């Protein structure tokens, strides 16, 4: 057992990555789905095991091929990575378990083995980013996950997905390239790629121009990948036209992992070493966060398409996450990381409910879902409850992070009250856009399509599991808050 346990960090990547090619060999689509789900569940089990270990021992390190760092590639899992490993693997496992019917409906039969293989590669890439402690290694995994996610997004039946994916690809590649340029410059100046090593050595060259440029490239490149306003252009359409189940996975994970790198690099490497970096970082991120929250929420309030409405809401919620981080206080970073977890829960539940709707309805604009609550009561009930979590009603996960965020903002000083006002206003905007859906589904007129029924049971089950988690973590939040607090302490440099 203990021999296995030592290898958990690398297994987190290897399990999905090595299952991927095997999937292609299984030609039967049901078998492919079953194998993919199994691999994803294994991956979740590994993440949970890692999480348990992290809670007791703070950091789990691993030297690839027993080469000690900085010569070998080092893997390391701490509270921050553990929190996101839970999100990524949890979302993947939950969606895959429930969504066979939805995927089978959206994707051509002969393409399905390739699709599942790409899904696992995306998962492996995301896991890789989270477990590695090496800046270049992050880039490699970033590319693996990005290329694989372009494939799974473009698998949708709607041809409009192609321009959306193309945009996603271009923007994603620009972001990744920026990151690579930044890492290259740092390597040039410090001669190392190991994050901990960079942190030690960058101090000597911190005042030199290449490091400044590197900080700029890395921050902008990752902000682009994380869809930080106004670099979010690729996100709404990619989410809208992707297969419904893929949207759940992407919405829960993709941007959060990019934010993970952004925060890790900025707080871990630059913050303690670059003079005035905290002020630049805060002044850069704070106004963008506020604008992003308000603008994206406003767009969501007027958006006719259900999936794009939720996608815009995601842009706004990313604003909450960066707002917390830009306060550069332990409370603020805690709120930010906690919201990564809680928003993933809420959005996954919402998009799962949308996937349920997608089983019965061909088009998903608000006018198409008129009166659908009568035919699909369980789906819509799940949507409403998940929506409450997104709004931040007490008793739900969304409320806990809102509580932390408002507390952090109030502690931040003179501007606190104004920032609270923004949070409050955008919460009310969330009420408006969620309630537009509710009114349409419950009170709208249904036209034609009388014979639609409730979504398939596995999909409904997955949706309700996600909803239940929203309430569970709203009433017993010690796990995510504990991890987020520890992670914030690590990022702010108070813990090893």
């Amino acid at each position, binding site marked *: 057992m203990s021999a296995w346990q030592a290898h958990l960090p690398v297994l987190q990547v290897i399990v999905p990555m090595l299952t991927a090619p095997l999937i292609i060999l299984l030609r039967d689509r049901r078998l492919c789905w079953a194998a993919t789900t199994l691999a994803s569940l294994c991956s979740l089990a590994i993440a949970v095991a890692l999480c348990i270990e992290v809670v007791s021992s703070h950091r789990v390190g691993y030297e690839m091929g027993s080469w000690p760092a900085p010569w070998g590639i080092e893997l390391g899992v701490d509270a921050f990575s553990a929190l996101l490993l839970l999100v990524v693997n949890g979302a993947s496992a939950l969606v895959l378990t429930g969504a066979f019917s939805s995927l089978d409906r959206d994707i051509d039969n002969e393409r399905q083995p390739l699709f599942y293989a790409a899904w696992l590669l995306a998962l492996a890439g995301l896991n890789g980013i989270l477990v590695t402690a090496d800046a270049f290694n992050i880039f490699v995994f970033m590319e693996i996950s990005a290329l694989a996610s372009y494939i799974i997004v473009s698998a949708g039946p709607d041809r409009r997905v192609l321009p959306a994916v193309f945009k996603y690809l271009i923007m994603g590649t620009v972001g990744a390239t920026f990151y690579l340029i930044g890492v290259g410059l740092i390597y040039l100046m410090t001669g190392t790629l190991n994050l901990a090593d960079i942190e030690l050595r960058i101090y000597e060259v911190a005042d030199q121009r290449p490091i400044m440029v590197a900080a700029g490239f890395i921050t902008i490149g990752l902000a682009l990948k994380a869809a930080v306003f106004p670099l979010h252009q690729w996100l709404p359409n990619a989410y809208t036209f992707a297969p419904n189940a893929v949207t759940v996975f992407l919405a829960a994970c993709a941007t959060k992992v990019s934010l993970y790198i952004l925060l890790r690099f900025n707080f871990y490497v630059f913050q303690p070493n670059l003079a005035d970096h905290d002020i630049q970082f805060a002044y850069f991120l704070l106004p963008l966060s506020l604008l992003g929250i308000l603008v994206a929420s406003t767009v969501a309030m007027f958006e006719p398409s259900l999936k794009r409405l939720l996608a815009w809401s995601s842009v706004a919620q990313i604003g909450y996450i960066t707002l917390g981080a830009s306060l550069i206080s332990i409370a603020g970073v805690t709120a930010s990381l906690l919201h990564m977890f809680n928003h993933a829960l809420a959005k996954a539940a919402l998009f799962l409910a949308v996937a349920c709707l997608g089983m019965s309805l061909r088009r998903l604009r608000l006018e198409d879902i008129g009166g659908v609550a009568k035919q699909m009561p369980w789906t819509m009930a799940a949507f409403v409850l998940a929506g409450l979590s997104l709004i931040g009603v*007490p008793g739900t996960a969304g409320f*806990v992070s809102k*509580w932390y965020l*408002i507390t952090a903002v*109030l*502690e931040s000083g003179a501007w606190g009250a104004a920032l609270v006002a923004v949070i*409050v206003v955008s919460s009310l905007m969330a009420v408006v856009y969620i309630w537009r859906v509710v009114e349409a589904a*419950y009170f709208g007129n249904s036209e034609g399509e009388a014979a639609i029924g409730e979504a398939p049971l596995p999909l409904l089950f997955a949706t309700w599991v996600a909803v239940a988690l929203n309430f569970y973590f*709203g009433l017993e*939040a010690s796990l995510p808050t504990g991890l987020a607090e520890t992670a914030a302490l690590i990022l702010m440099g108070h813990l090893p």
Partner: protein
Amino acid sequence: MESTILACLLIPLAGACAIMLAARVSDNLRETATLVTAVALAWTVWSLVPDIVDGERPGLLLFQVVPGIEVAFAIEPLGMLFAALASSLWIVNSIYSIGYMRGNKEKKQTRFYVFFALSLAAAIGIAFAGNLFTLFLFYEALTLLTYPLVSHKGDANTLRSARVYLGVLLSTSIGLLLPAIILTYMVAGSGDFTPGGILEGRLEGPALGLLLALFVFGIGKAAVMPVHRWLPAAMVAPTPVSALLHAVAVVKAGVFSITKIIVYVFGVEHLFAQPSSGWLLYAAAFTIIVASLVALRQQNLKRLLAYSTVAQLSYVIMAAAVLKPLAEIGASVHIVAHAFGKITLFFAAGAIYTASKKTEVPQLAGIGRRMPWTMAAFTIGALSMIGVPPTGGFVSKWYILAGAFQADNYVAIFTIIASTALNAAYFLPIIFLAWFGREAADAGPDHGEAPLASVIALTITAALTILFFLFNAPVIELESQIFGGPA
């Protein structure tokens, strides 16, 4: 006793499930489920009363969200009173609902009864809340659970009003109440309701007045102007909803929360020593006068009652804001007295609608001769609103006035006198018109009394209004405990 607290919350939830299942069998079984649940809840709530009277303060910790933020319950006299009131009146209201919903052939009755039961669970949660977070949790739950009841009819007009309802209540609670609660936790380190308050020595001066404002206007359910608009909007709901929820459970949850926060978070004496809290009295007095003036101009009976409720709610706030023990007792007595009177008035308005489809005041000419029981009850309820003996309204007014004199608070005294005159000015003409007016020739079809269930219900509440005048000593004794006896 902890299990009893839990039972009080779970009985309505279990009842909601039972109602849903019973509806598949027959309507009668469904109504039986509602009544059984209501009786079981009231019985359980009342079983706690002797212990509270004996001075016990049972509590229960349900969840610890994170250290410091807990879903916890603690019963004290004020909450006991509110819970006993809401749960008892639910029985009467359920009898009334059966008559009303069947008499008007309303659709989706199952949904109606289910959400009614759930709303009661939320109201009990508010009553027993042991800290601000728990209070907020159930406060929001009550808003959301009553939305399906308000939007029951589902047409465009109803939806618009329901939007106002939800919009005002959620924007005040998220926008003002939540920051107020978080500020309290930050300043005091906890939000537990503690006798004497938790802010003394921690927050003073203008900041205290500001925090009070965040609480008072954040608790939109108390309908202090200008956040009262949701209450007239809520009148689109079926009348039993207006009667129990928008005359008792929801609005009383609002004033109850404010009173509780004044007593257990701010502390009466601490607040009295702070001049920055003085504005509350004026805000309440303003609401009383203006809402009464608006009520004068209403033609629609339910809207008139709604504005009357707005005014009466601010009686409670004003009484609490006098910040003297006698007035605080008056505030809690008024919660009860107004509940009996106003639920009677709404029952009567609903009975009139069921029997004759009349909704406007001028249409009521001569209706007293067709519906003597209903209009007799209406008369008693209206007299209670004015504060005429022998009705419950007189008792609470007596205590509030006594408290105001104790504090030499002439604003409060003047407001009570003026609003009594205004109440008389809008209620007496209706009573006169109903009994002595001449029925218009084209007044519509011949009709008699409302369904028996409705008449029974409104007779009971009218009787309660009078009985409360005679037997109010237990309530006063119970509430005096908070202040160590009527000073």
